[in-house]
């Protein structure tokens, strides 16, 4: 798990599949206002410790699928189980706790550009109810895990390179030692060299048992990493991985 990544320096190794389901979609449908169909009859299972690509061109429904997992959107039909929780039936007050089990990495990083890197991470720790005195140590620890040194702490995100910003975003996603990492086009804004760095980092996280789901339209990337894929086209799974 990521907890061990935060506490012990380890070397990457093969991801560990336990066979128990971490994410399950059962005949899920989602339509947006204006009768825009986003997903149709989606069913799949992702096991604990798996690394899975959700692929497809723009508009295929990749982002909607990820949003359904963390209950930003609700399905119109069907059931979604995430770490044994029925996401569609979760009470609103329980949603934040689901999201703490799922780290989310975005294409545009979604960092607070008017705050320093330290504050970007510390704010989330405060939201999770961490004790004030523990926060500085925890921030440094998680940044080291993603390969960032202390000099970035006082920098605003926009002073960092795209790769460094994405590392900060991944550090933020790892904060609560989540069972799942969802990454929506995490390398979409990065050059090939930085893309490799970020993907290697996600592999490293996965190697320690965290389930990783990466949504991407980059077929080269998918071919390079040889993981199971869930290919989407116009809201439907075209070939089960």
């Amino acid at each position, binding site marked *: 798990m990521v907890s061990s990544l935060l506490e012990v320096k380890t070397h990457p190794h093969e991801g560990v599949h336990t066979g128990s389901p971490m994410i399950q979609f059962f005949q899920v449908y989602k339509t947006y206002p204006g009768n825009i169909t986003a997903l149709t009859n989606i069913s799949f299972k992702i096991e604990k410790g798996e690394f899975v690509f959700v692929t497809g061109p723009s508009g295929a429904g990749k982002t909607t699928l990820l949003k359904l997992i963390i209950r930003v959107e609700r399905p119109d039909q069907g059931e979604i189980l995430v770490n044994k929780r029925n996401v569609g039936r979760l009470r609103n007050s329980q949603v934040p706790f*689901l999201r703490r089990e799922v780290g989310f990495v975005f294409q545009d990083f979604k960092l607070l550009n008017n705050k320093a890197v330290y504050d970007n991470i510390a704010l989330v720790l405060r939201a999770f109810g961490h004790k004030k005195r523990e926060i500085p140590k925890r921030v440094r620890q998680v940044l080291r895990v993603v390969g960032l040194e202390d000099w970035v702490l006082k920098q605003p995100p926009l002073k960092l390179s795209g790769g460094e910003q994405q590392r900060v975003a991944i550090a933020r996603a790892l904060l609560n030692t989540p069972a799942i990492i969802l990454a929506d086009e995490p390398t979409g804004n990065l050059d090939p060299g930085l893309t490799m760095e970020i993907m290697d980092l996600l592999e490293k996280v996965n190697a320690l048992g965290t389930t990783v789901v990466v949504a991407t339209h980059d077929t080269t990337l998918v071919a390079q990493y040889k993981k199971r894929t869930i290919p989407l086209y116009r809201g439907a799974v075209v070939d089960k991985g």
Partner: protein
Amino acid sequence: MKENGPAHFLSIGTITVSFFLFASLLLLPLNFISLLEAWEKKVQIILYLKDGVGEKRTIQLAGELHREEGIREARYISQRMAMESFQRDLAGYGGVLKGLKAETFPASFEITIKERFRTPGRIRSLAARLSKIKEVEEVQYGGLWLERFSLFLYTLRWGAWILGGILVVIIVSVTANTVRLTLYNKRGEIEIMKLVGATDAFVKLPFYLEGGLQGLLGAGGSILLLFVLFHFFSLKVAPYVSLYFGQLRLSFLPPNLIAWILGIGVASGLLGGLLSLRKPARI
């Protein structure tokens, strides 16, 4: 609040002006009441007697008046005493006043009233009872204008609270709009915080606090402004006013009223924050 400085400055300024109007309307009757109380102490009823009331009847009348509920003292002023008082008051016109006869002046009773009977209503009812005495020609008392002044104060006090109610609506609306503006400016931050698992309470609390703080600063500012103006009035203006109206006993808003105003400020600000977060970003 620093991210949205000008809007907050305007909002706090508007709240300050609103509360200043409200607090001023509360302060005015407070000081007019002390003026009214000072005047009430001086109020006398004068009973002018008909001509020809004999000495025996006058003594009887004095006894009856002393027994009357609400009368502290009834001093008899004979026709001669009235004339002498008149001559003393107009001593400069000595030659003109020489031919006056005591019979020209009516005898009277000057009546001072017990403290708890010195309200406009009770003075009026006492005067009405005394006017029914057969030997009384006329009853004079300064109660009518006191009654009108008292009514004016009553209206002013209620007006202050009604205006206060209207101002609270304005304050709530101003605060709600400012908080909404901050909410709009911070929508990115809110979205991120909710996506990473912050609870609604964690996201909303700063906005409630911002509303409450704006209300507190606005109400506090109004009290400060009013105090400065009150101090200026006490030092520079009141001495001149005292020349016409006698010694003024001015007082500022009592601590409990200040606490109420600050409390209303905080509550209105919180309500503003609450209203602006009625429909939070659905993330």
